[in-house]
Every structure is written in structure tokens, then in C-alpha cells.
């Protein structure tokens, strides 16, 4: 029971504690590290807690299901929380040497924890309006993180990010209103039960489309993706790692909730639309990435491409597809964020992340090179790294529904991914140090943060079947609508 709410309460407590010591940076760092460790332990406990029961249910304020807000801890959500907790732990360590005293004075750590509170809330809640509120909570945290050390960057990226995300939230809000007036409820399980019983009400299609539009923008599917590379190269590297690991992934996770739990399986128009968008997004993202010359922009464009993979896995509409999607998200939370941290180390070592100004890191910083290589190859999908299994399960899911176009796209886009990663490798790690530049040392805590994430990625790769069987258990729970609705609405029905 308690495990379902601790992932929200622990970072909240961390944020409040850090706020109390706002003017004592050392203290804040220690608190942040302590709370992040506790969060990691809690995340492991939640994984264990849902490994023998299907789900842990908390009705907030003891209001029974359709009236109150249902917080549901189930395997998929627990997996996401585990990923975000590993990421939080590594980023807090990394930021120990990245975040300056000024940044910490301006509230870097409270904002990080505020964002994590929103993210975990969004993973756990099974109420659509509550999901909207959590969205706004982590958006506020991310807005803050974008401007917390404003002197280093530009306002323009923040303005763009703000406008697009506010619009996406409004779409989501309007969709919510329409859904409430047609279905009469916003509890996901209750909507699912009503839709299964009496068919989709009038206006349901429009409502779901509006909400999906909001999620698609936040996830960064193709027509709406242009803000992602810009926004993710604005904040500090630690914050950018958190953004890349969590923000767009929540869009995907919410799409999973919407298309699997809310929309009945018979309505496959949504999934067909998602499939086309995903294919375009996969290809578009890597093509944009191929033209970029700044590491963070390359990585940002790759996020978009990888989001396409997740959407594709989801669009198969099968249990295996859903599990593959969840596995892919989990793998991305760790690997993609790690690449942002590596970019931070590259910036620290060579003073720039512009690929025309870097070079020679492989000879001078072989450990960094090795860490980058492991993550980059994992992203491209080489065995036995986690990315290989993420793509393997995706391909298996596409074969199951004999979708060969998807198969061709997934393999082709992988090759293009490898191209961009090789570009970073050749320009930043090979070659000579540019004239007039000297390499600076990379602080120990930065390296440690990257090592932790790389080790986690390796562990995920090595224990992939185990993670996948866990995800499949979660997917089975989601796909079996009557079991899910009965479990959440239990007392009422």
C-alpha cells in the first residue's frame, strides 16, 4: 500500500529539504544524494512489491474508485519508476561537479525533485485529470530547470518550449472536458469499463484525438518535434539528461495508457494513425540528426527518432508490442540520458560540444571514450547491449503481426542511427585536438555518474529476458481489460 505513494512522497520530501537549505550548497548536495539513494531503494522495493501481486492500489483520501483518484502501482509503472530513479541517482552525482554554487543557490535541486515528483505521479496515477495535474507539476519543474542558470543560454529556447508545451496541455485539457461530458467519468478504469459495456459514446473519438494530440506533442512526434533539439540543448547537462530520460517518455507512457486502457481494442484507427506517425518520426528524427553538428542537437533529434520506435511498438496493439514498447522506454531512459551526460563530460574536457571544435578525446580520455562507445552502440542496437534487446523485441512484435514495412524501417533507421553516433565518435574522439585548445580533466563525480548509468545499461542488456518477462506481465495486466477494471473498481462493481 505504502509503496504506491512513496515514489511521489520521497522526492517531494527531498525538494522541501533542499529548499530549507537553499543557501547552503554543500548541504543541498548531500541531501540530494541521500534522497536520491533512498528513492533508488524505494524503487527497488516497489519492483519487488509488484513481482508477486498484480498491482497495488491506493484510492486517495479513501474515496472509492470512480469518485476518488486511483493511484495504481503495476509492473509497467514500477519499471518506469525504477528507470527514473537510477537516472536521478546518476544525475545527482554528475551534477555534484557540474552545478555551480550560483545554480544551486537559484534552486537547482528543489526543481529537480519537483520534476521527479511530477514524473512519478504521472507514471502512477490512473485518473486522467490527475495526470494533467502531474503533467503541469513536472512541466513547472522543467521550466525552472531551463532558466535556473540563464546566463549560459538563451531565452528563446525556453519561450518556444513553454509555448508548445502550454498548447499541448490545453489540447489535453480540452480533450478531458469532452471525455467527461461524453463518458461522465475521468477515472481510467471507469472509462474503460463504461466503454466496454456500452460502446464508445458520441464525441469519444474527438476527445481521445484531442488528448492524443497533447501527448504526441509532449512526446515529440514528427510534426511537433522541432522544439526538442533546441530545448534539450538549453539547460545544464544534468538537467538535459533528466529531460531526455523523462519528459518525452511520459508522453509515450501516457499514450500507452490512452490507447491501451481507455480506447477499446476494436477501435484500431488510432493505432493505424499512430503507426504512420511513428514510421515518419523514426525516419525524420535520424535525418535531422544527420545534419546537425552539435552533440546535444544530434542527441535531441535522436530522441525523436527513438520515440518513433516506441510509438511503432505500441501501434501493433498486441501484448508483445506493448511489452516491447515499455522495454524500449526503460532502455532509453538509461542510455539516452547517459549520452547527454557524456556530452557534458566532453564539454568539460574540450570546452565545447560543437563537433567542429572537438577531437582527440580517445587518446587523452580513453575511459570517457569507452563509456561513450558502450552507450552509442547500445543506442544503435549492437548485442549484447540493452538497445539490441529493445530492438529485438520490437522486431519480434512486428513479425508477430507480420508488419514487414515496420521491420524494414526499424532496421534501416538503426543503420542511420549508427551513422550519427559514428559522426560524434570520429569528430570528438578520433582526430587531433584542435589547435589552440587544451583538454581539461573531467571531474571524478561526472565520470562516476556516467559509469553508473553505463553499468545499468549493461545490466539491463545482460538480464534482458528477465526485464522483458516483467514487462510482459505488466502488459498482460493492461491488455486484459476486465481484470484491470475489476481490480481498480473492485469495491464498486
Amino acid at each position, binding site marked *: 500500500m505504502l509503496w504506491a505513494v512513496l515514489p511521489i512522497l520521497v522526492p517531494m520530501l527531498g525538494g522541501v529539504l533542499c529548499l530549507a537549505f537553499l543557501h547552503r550548497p554543500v548541504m543541498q548536495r548531500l541531501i540530494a544524494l541521500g534522497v536520491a539513494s533512498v528513492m533508488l531503494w524505494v524503487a527497488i522495493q516497489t519492483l519487488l512489491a509488484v513481482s508477486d501481486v498484480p498491482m497495488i492500489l491506493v484510492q486517495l483520501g479513501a474515496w472509492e474508485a470512480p469518485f476518488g483518484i486511483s493511484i495504481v502501482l503495476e509492473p509497467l509503472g514500477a519499471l518506469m519508476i525504477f528507470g527514473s530513479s537510477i537516472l536521478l541517482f546518476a544525475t545527482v552525482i554528475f551534477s555534484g561537479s557540474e552545478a555551480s554554487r550560483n545554480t544551486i543557490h537559484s534552486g537547482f535541486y528543489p526543481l529537480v525533485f519537483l520534476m521527479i515528483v511530477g514524473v512519478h505521479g504521472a507514471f502512477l496515477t490512473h485518473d486522467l*485529470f490527475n495526470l*494533467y*495535474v502531474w503533467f*503541469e507539476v513536472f*512541466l*513547472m519543474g522543467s*521550466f525552472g530547470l531551463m*532558466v535556473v542558470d*540563464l546566463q549560459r*543560454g*538563451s*531565452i*528563446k529556447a*525556453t*519561450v518556444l518550449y*513553454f*509555448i508548445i508545451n*502550454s*498548447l499541448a496541455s*490545453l489540447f489535453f*485539457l*480540452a480533450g*478531458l*472536458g*469532452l471525455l*467527461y*461530458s461524453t463518458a461522465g467519468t475521468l477515472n481510467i478504469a471507469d472509462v474503460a469499463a463504461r466503454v466496454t459495456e456500452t460502446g464508445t459514446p458520441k464525441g469519444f473519438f474527438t476527445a481521445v484525438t484531442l488528448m492524443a494530440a497533447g501527448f504526441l506533442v509532449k512526446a515529440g512526434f514528427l510534426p511537433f518535434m522541432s522544439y526538442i533539439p533546441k530545448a534539450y540543448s538549453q539547460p545544464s547537462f544534468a538537467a538535459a539528461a533528466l529531460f531526455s530520460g523523462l519528459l518525452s517518455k511520459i508522453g509515450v507512457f501516457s499514450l500507452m495508457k490512452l490507447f491501451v486502457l481507455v480506447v477499446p481494442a476494436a477501435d484500431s484507427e488510432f493505432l493505424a494513425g499512430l503507426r504512420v506517425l511513428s514510421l515518419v518520426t523514426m525516419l525524420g528524427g535520424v535525418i535531422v540528426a544527420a545534419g546537425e553538428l552539435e552533440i546535444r542537437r544530434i542527441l535531441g533529434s535522436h530522441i525523436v527518432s527513438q520515440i518513433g520506435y516506441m510509438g511503432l511498438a505500441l501501434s501493433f496493439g498486441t501484448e508483445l508490442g506493448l511489452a516491447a514498447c515499455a522495454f524500449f522506454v526503460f532502455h532509453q531512459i538509461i542510455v539516452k540520458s547517459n549520452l547527454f551526460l557524456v556530452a557534458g563530460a566532453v564539454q568539460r574536457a574540450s570546452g565545447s560540444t560543437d563537433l567542429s571544435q572537438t577531437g582527440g578525446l580517445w587518446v587523452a580520455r580513453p575511459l570517457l571514450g569507452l563509456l561513450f562507445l558502450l552507450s552509442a552502440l547500445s543506442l544503435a542496437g549492437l548485442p549484447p547491449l540493452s538497445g539490441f534487446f529493445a530492438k529485438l523485441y520490437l522486431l519480434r512484435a512486428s513479425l508477430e503481426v507480420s508488419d514487414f514495412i515496420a521491420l524494414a524501417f526499424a532496421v534501416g533507421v538503426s543503420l542511420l542511427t549508427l551513422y550519427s553516433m559514428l559522426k560524434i565518435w570520429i569528430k570528438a574522439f578520433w582526430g587531433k585536438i584542435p589547435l589552440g585548445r587544451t583538454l581539461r580533466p573531467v571531474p571524478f563525480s561526472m565520470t562516476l555518474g556516467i559509469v553508473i548509468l553505463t553499468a545499468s545499461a549493461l545490466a539491463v542488456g545482460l538480464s534482458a529476458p528477465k526485464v522483458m518477462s516483467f514487462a510482459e506481465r505488466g502488459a498482460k495486466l493492461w491488455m486484459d481489460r476486465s481484470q484491470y477494471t475489476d481490480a481498480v473498481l473492485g469495491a464498486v462493481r
Partner: protein
Amino acid sequence: MIVLYALMVATLMGAGTYLILQKSLLRIFLGLSLLGYGANLFLFISSGMRRGSPPLIDELDVVLSPEASDPLPQALILTAIVIGLGTSAFFLVLARRAADDGERDNIDHIDRESV
């Protein structure tokens, strides 16, 4: 009644859309606010829109009569308004900061040097 509300939502959304397509940060801010009001009114329509039927439980009844308008959307709107206030404040500070940096109130000209 509902047609009147629909027209109001359409007007607000239309004006908001026009304003966020402008280049001035202040107009974008106003546009976002109008869109927010539009979305909130849109939410309000889901409460049933019946005149003279407040969501009050009669003295002798235990539950709300089915004719009463639904109070929940009003609670939802209240939450959305509070959130909107917070984000608006953030955006205004951002616009102010752009002005302080010596640039005009134009989205193309903020931080000219860094893009």
C-alpha cells in the same frame, strides 16, 4: 444556451490562436491566456449547462438529484485556473527578462547573439 457558450469558446480560441501567431511576446502571452480561458469554458460545458439547478442536495434527500448540474467540472476548472496562473506568471517573468536584456518585445530578436 449551449450554442451561446460554443460561440464564446470559438471566439476565445480564435482570438487566442490569432494572438499566439504574432511575434510580440506580450501578444503571445495574451493569446495563451485566451486559449486557456477557452479551454476552461469548454470544460465548463461538460457540467450539463442546466439553468436553475444548482448542485445542492435537498434537505430530505441523500444524493444529488439527476437533474442538478454537475459540480465536478467547476472543481476541475478551478484547478486548471490555478495552474494557468502559475504558468502565466512564469511566462511574464520570462518576457520581462527578455526586455531587460535590452531586446525588443519580439520573439525573433531575443538573444540575437546566441542563436
